[in-house]
């Protein structure tokens, strides 16, 4: 109400008073004058040009447009002088004129519950927000958009995971809100970032954000059917805004794919904001069928002139600089629908230079124009209003001096709803050239070039320092004369007419002399400039791209081979034990044959004489290759989240793990809460995308955790239940009881689908396995009892450092143990951790594995396995299984991997020595018969990385020398997650 009132106020004092409004400050007068622009080159839409065209504007709309239109009487007519008219641009993703609410204050204590009543249980779901409620037109900010050529902005409050609807405004700075508001509801917005208006913890991770969006939509459907007993304004709003365009901010290509997948799950086709690096996975981006709103903030070159700083920049980031401007071209070629946005740009004014960069990489001018006009109009479903210059549409257009994307082109005017906004006086003349100048009867040859401080003025052959400024068709030149120590200045004030200048020169001695200057010829271009132009004409190339597109990626995606390992020592992990002088044939991604003197056929032969062939290492507990948070710590149970949503296929640690012989890993949720998230079990197929890495028909796993982490022992102000091991037991009791009740409610009329409960039910029904972070014997025992009571089995205790104290109980329960070989002393609950743990559990019949929980250790798990030989005398053959077959069994993937057996996946490692030796290192690591690590190839990568870096360094220095913007070198590292890392 307040809002509307202030709006009325604004309207009241306006000269644009609406006709039925009383007017108290002047006499009433109708001002709907028809305006006409003639003699314009009109680009009505990309590729469609009317030369010498006329446009007739009335009531803010285009009344007529074309050639040979009769001009109505009583119209104001302007001659465009052949200048160009283009539809003005549309910004689809702004927050222009939206007042951002204040950040919620925090008292330092985590907030787990919602802060509002009557809304959704999570404060970050704010679908009820409406841009209108935060709207306060900001003329100054709007001017930046107007000056950059924009006529329409879809603006909304950038706050929350569900943000509510936006609005569409015309940037009529001459008008009032009554003129500007085109649509009060335009677009319904979502993001993966939390609201600043609340400190509610959940979600603490991106996977939590994705899960929250899923559940919110399930709940909205349920609510729409009238099942809820109470009011939920957020869900109501979400349902009410269903028919608006649904827009979500995702960011990079990986998040883009993630939100599209989310959309598939909840039955929504989002328009996705992001994909500035879509060129790296263009086929996948195309396959989403999503329309995109793409930022164009291509990175500046790194200033690498100091070699000491060069190393800060990864090859991948250097490539970003080189390749990102090719993104739009790549999107166009792929036929993807996209609009561009000024999001992430310092100012809308930077847009044009970014688009010119894109055009240099082969984007056509029509494509660039479309991304600013027709495509956003289409995406926002406002083609009836804007996007092209056609009869009946808003008179939103810009007048430019020439073709829009040409270097010298200037925007003169931006007309919004038929109202002219002057940007640059088009009477301003470019005076560059050589003039025959007559002063006091003497004629000098004066040549003038450039403007501002970059200008030069030459009199005959003497070059003078100069500053040239323009004001409309007036020119002001100040030249400097140096005479020994003194500097003196001459000022010229002149007006230009028909290429000639006439005015007055004000000499240093105070004399004023009239002068005239007749232009002989236009300024010639310097040779440098010409060279530059040639340079610029050739379409720029994006250069090397690899899978993934960082150092150690392959030029082509690695493919499967038929390979015969000849004469190896083969660690089968089967009854056959360790076979000397044995051949192994790999075909169709599988182990085809094991034996002596196998015939090679067309297989590539690898001489493995003196070498050891094993199945690949399986890491039961890893946190590599995870994006944006490993812990969803917002609740004490978060079964609804899954690491599968956030697998990062570009983490260099995947490659490093391969170099250490790892072929499969369970990427586990962290240990911040008793019931954590679901796992991703992956094969380390470096160069493949996340969904190809995740096991097909993957066994289902979830992380549980006990002890110090879940009871927040090291938090100064832990307030989340539980704070003791006693409480931990009850968390499980509570959730499993609830899951049972949930199962029984499935036929109820008001049944509400709950992803978390569905997952817990899978556990109760033994369809999903538990891998539980655990340390001391009491809690281990407790969880087994809870599981037994609820009729299921704990599949794996992970860490399990006191497993040796209850090994017989574990064996009886049927739980496996995946432990550290020798870690201890890092916290109180590992006081009694001993390196003999593995050997003791193994001796009592517990299926035992060693895991890493650490990106460094995971690449030498073979050494860790060897510690089972040292500590407790496990045989070498059995010790080796601790990091291969046993974890494969724990993960229920032993039918596919974990041993060398005919028909199993060819996940193999060729070692230079006994794999348990301290000197062992992998020479070849293959997965599914595809070689992903090869020592020779690795050495090649090192060379090519060096060469490519050098080449890009040269190019960046060149860019700097050309005067392009640079940025300070920065080294970007991925956060190394471990169990305890909380935060997003």
């Amino acid at each position, binding site marked *: 109400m307040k809002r509307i009132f202030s709006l009325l106020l604004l309207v009241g004092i306006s000269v644009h008073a609406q006709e039925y409004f009383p007017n108290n400050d002047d006499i009433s007068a109708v001002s709907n004058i028809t305006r006409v622009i003639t003699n314009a080159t009109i680009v009505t839409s990309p590729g469609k040009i009317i030369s010498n065209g006329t446009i007739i504007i009335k009531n803010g709309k285009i009344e007529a447009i074309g050639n040979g239109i009769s001009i109505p009487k009583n119209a104001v007519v302007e001659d465009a002088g052949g200048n160009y008219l283009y539809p003005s641009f549309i910004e689809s993703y702004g927050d222009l004129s939206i007042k951002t609410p204040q950040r919620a204050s925090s008292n330092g204590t985590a907030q787990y519950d919602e802060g509002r009543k009557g809304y959704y249980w999570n404060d970050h779901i704010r679908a009820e927000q409406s841009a209108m409620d935060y709207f306060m037109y900001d003329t100054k900010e709007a001017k930046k958009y107007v000056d950059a050529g924009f006529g329409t902005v879809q603006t909304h409050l950038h706050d929350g995971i569900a943000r509510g609807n936006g609005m569409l405004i015309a940037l009529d700075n001459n008008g009032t809100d009554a003129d500007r508001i085109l649509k009060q509801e335009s677009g319904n917005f979502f993001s993966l970032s939390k609201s600043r208006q609340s400190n509610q913890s959940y979600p603490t991770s991106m996977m939590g954000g994705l899960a929250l969006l899923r559940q919110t939509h399930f709940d909205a459907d349920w609510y729409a059917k009238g099942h809820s007993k109470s009011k939920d304004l957020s869900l109501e709003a979400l349902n009410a805004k269903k028919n608006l365009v649904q827009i979500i901010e995702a960011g990079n290509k990986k998040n883009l794919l993630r939100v599209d997948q989310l959309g598939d799950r909840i039955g929504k086709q989002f328009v996705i904001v992001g994909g500035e690096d879509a060129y790296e996975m263009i086929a996948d981006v195309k396959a989403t069928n999503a329309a995109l709103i793409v930022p164009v903030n291509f990175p500046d070159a790194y200033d690498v002139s100091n070699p*000491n*700083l060069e*190393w*800060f920049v*990864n*090859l991948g980031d250097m490539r970003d600089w080189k390749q990102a401007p090719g993104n739009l071209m790549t999107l166009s070629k792929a036929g993807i629908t996209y609009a561009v946005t000024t999001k992430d740009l310092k100012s809308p004014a930077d847009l044009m230079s970014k688009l010119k960069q894109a055009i240099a990489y082969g984007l056509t001018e029509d494509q660039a124009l479309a991304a600013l006009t027709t495509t956003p109009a289409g995406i926002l479903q406002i083609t009836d209003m804007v996007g092209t210059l056609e009869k009946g549409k808003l008179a939103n257009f810009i007048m430019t001096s020439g073709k829009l994307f040409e270097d010298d082109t200037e925007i003169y005017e931006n007309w919004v709803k038929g109202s002219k906004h002057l940007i640059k006086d088009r009477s301003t003349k470019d005076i560059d050239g050589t003039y025959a100048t007559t002063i006091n009867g003497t004629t000098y040859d004066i040549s003038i070039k450039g403007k501002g401080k970059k200008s030069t003025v030459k009199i005959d052959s003497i070059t003078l320092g100069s500053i040239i400024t323009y004001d409309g068709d007036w020119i002001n030149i100040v030249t400097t004369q140096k005479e020994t120590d003194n500097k003196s200045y001459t000022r010229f004030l002149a007006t230009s007419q028909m290429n000639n200048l006439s005015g007055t020169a004000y000499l240093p001695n105070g004399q004023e002399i009239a002068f005239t200057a007749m232009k002989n010829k236009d300024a010639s271009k310097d040779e440098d400039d010409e060279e530059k132009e040639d340079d610029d004409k050739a379409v720029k190339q994006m250069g090397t791209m690899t899978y993934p597109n*960082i*150092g*150690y990626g392959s030029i082509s995606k690695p493919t499967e081979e038929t390979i015969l390992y000849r004469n190896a020592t083969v660690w089968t992990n089967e009854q056959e034990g360790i076979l000397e002088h044995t051949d192994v044939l790999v075909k169709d991604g599988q182990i085809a044959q094991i034996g002596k003197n196998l015939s090679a056929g067309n297989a590539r032969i690898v001489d493995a004489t003196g070498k050891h062939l094993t199945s690949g290492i399986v890491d039961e507990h890893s946190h590599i290759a995870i994006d944006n948070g490993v812990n969803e710590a917002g609740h004490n149970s978060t079964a609804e989240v899954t690491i599968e949503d956030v697998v990062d296929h570009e983490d*260099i*640690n995947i*490659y*490093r793990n391969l*170099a250490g012989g790892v072929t499969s890993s369970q990427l586990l949720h962290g240990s911040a809460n008793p019931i954590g998230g679901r796992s991703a079990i992956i094969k380390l197929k470096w160069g493949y995308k996340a969904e190809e890495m995740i096991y097909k028909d993957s066994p289902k796993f979830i992380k549980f955790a006990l002890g*110090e982490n879940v009871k927040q022992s090291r938090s100064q102000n832990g307030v989340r239940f539980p704070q003791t091991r006693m409480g931990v037991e009850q968390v499980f009791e509570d959730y499993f009881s609830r899951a049972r009740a949930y199962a029984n409610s499935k036929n109820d009329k008001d049944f509400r689908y709950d992803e978390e409960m569905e997952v817990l039910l899978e556990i109760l029904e033994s369809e999903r396995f538990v891998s539980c972070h655990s340390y001391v014997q009491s809690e281990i025992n407790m969880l087994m009892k809870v599981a037994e009571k609820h009729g299921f089995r704990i599949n794996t205790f992970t860490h399990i450092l006191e497993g*040796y104290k209850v090994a*017989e109980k574990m064996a009886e329960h049927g739980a496996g143990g995946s432990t550290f070989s*020798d*870690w*201890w*002393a*890092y*916290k*109180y609950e590992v*006081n*009694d951790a001993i390196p*003999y743990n593995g*050997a*003791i559990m193994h*001796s*009592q019949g517990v299926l035992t594995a060693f895991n890493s929980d650490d*990106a*460094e*250790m995971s690449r*030498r798990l073979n*050494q860790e396995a*060897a*510690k089972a*030989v*040292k500590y*407790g005398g496990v045989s070498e053959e059995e010790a080796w299984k601790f990091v291969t077959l046993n974890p494969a069994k724990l993960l229920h993937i032993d039918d596919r991997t974990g041993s060398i057996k005919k028909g199993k996946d060819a996940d193999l490692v060729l070692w230079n020595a006994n794999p*348990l*030796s*301290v*000197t*062992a*290192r992998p020479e070849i690591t293959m997965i599914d018969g595809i070689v992903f690590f090869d020592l020779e190839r690795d050495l090649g990568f*090192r060379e090519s*990385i060096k060469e490519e*870096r050098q080449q890009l360094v040269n190019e960046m220095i060149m860019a700097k020398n050309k005067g392009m913007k640079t940025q*300070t070198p*920065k*080294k*970007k*590292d*991925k*956060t190394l997650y471990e169990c305890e*890392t*909380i*935060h997003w």
Partner: protein
Amino acid sequence: MNAKLFTGNMKTMKNIVYIISALFAITATAQQTPAPVQQGVYTIMNATAHIGNGEVIENSVIVIENGIITAIADATSVKMDLKGERIDGYGMHVYPGIIAMNSTLGLVEVDAVNASDDEREIGTFNPHIRSLIAYNAESRVVESMRPNGVLLAQIVPRGGRISGKSSVVQLDAWNWEDAAIRTDDGVHINWPSSFRRSGTWYELGPIEPSKNYKEQVTELTDFLNSAQAYNSTVTPVGLNLKYAALQPALNGDENFYIHVDGEKAIRDVLKFIKANNIKKPVIIGGREADKVATELVAMNVPVVAGRVHDLPAREDEDVDMPYKFPKLLADKGVMVALENSGSMERHQARNFPFYAGTVAGYGMDMEQALMMITLTPAKILGIDKKYGSLEQGKSATLFISKGNALDMRGNQLTRAFIDGRDISLDSHQTELYERYMNKFGAEIKR
């Protein structure tokens, strides 16, 4: 005082005393008793002796008397009378005690328990801070070193620009005084970082060049110059513990350990060494020192290479850089030892032999790799007259292993001696192992 209450209290007191002593009894059994001074003579026969200086005697005889190696020789070419207890070393290997450099053993018991943490004093310039007095000789972490052959350690305080002084200890002692084999071996400088990281600990921002670097280097130089000036006065005005503490190092009686990484910073350190006439400099960490090898060799500056079991420092770096780095340095003639500072450094210190083993896996000769954790650190620490190698006249600080001690499988100690004292290879961990194997009636293998 009410008599009744008094007796009541007495009873409670007794109970408490009983409980406390019971607790101590448990702790006491978990703690190994330091071995007594050597009484008789030991002769180790027929073992392969890994001298620590790069040499090997395949079939050796080693005589230990009064804590000293009185003879070490090739058993096939030497005739001598066999004395004392004969230890059959056939098929086994003898090594000098491994030295854990730049460690914090005994300064922290449990990482996550603040009350057990004594490794880091507040303040920027703390040359007067001495690690030795906080060293807990009875730490359970310390005793877990010995079964792996780690018998000596340099105990280093952390934090600040100058963190304080380290001392060298042997790892089978009643108390710190007993443990010390070189008190105050040097002062530790944490060289300013030439870069800084933005972001938070949980989501790293990019690393950028540090703006404070020059200022911090100047501050450090000023501090040193002031200390020089203070110490060059015959009778210093007033008492300044911090400056005074630097005198031995400035005189060359103690080392200057400079913890530094990165080519540029190392070059700056070399300039700093020259400009301040630092007599005994040692670089710790030293990432990228291979690029400055010529200068390091010319100036005779040893490098204690950072943790071998580490990740490459950046995405593009060779995957095996931390593994092969010590060899890169050694190949260029730099004197190299190993250290393992970093996360979980204390309990991991028992993996020193395997760090050296890994270096051997990446091309280093196995005996040269051994030298990086024995004789070279002894030289750097200034204890090589007594420790670091199996040589006649040196301390009998050594151990016998069933196999290659630098390999996890071979590192099976049968005996270990510190100054000839026949030390226990048990720990609370081996006791727990045995206790539970006994509970399960399973065969103990160690």
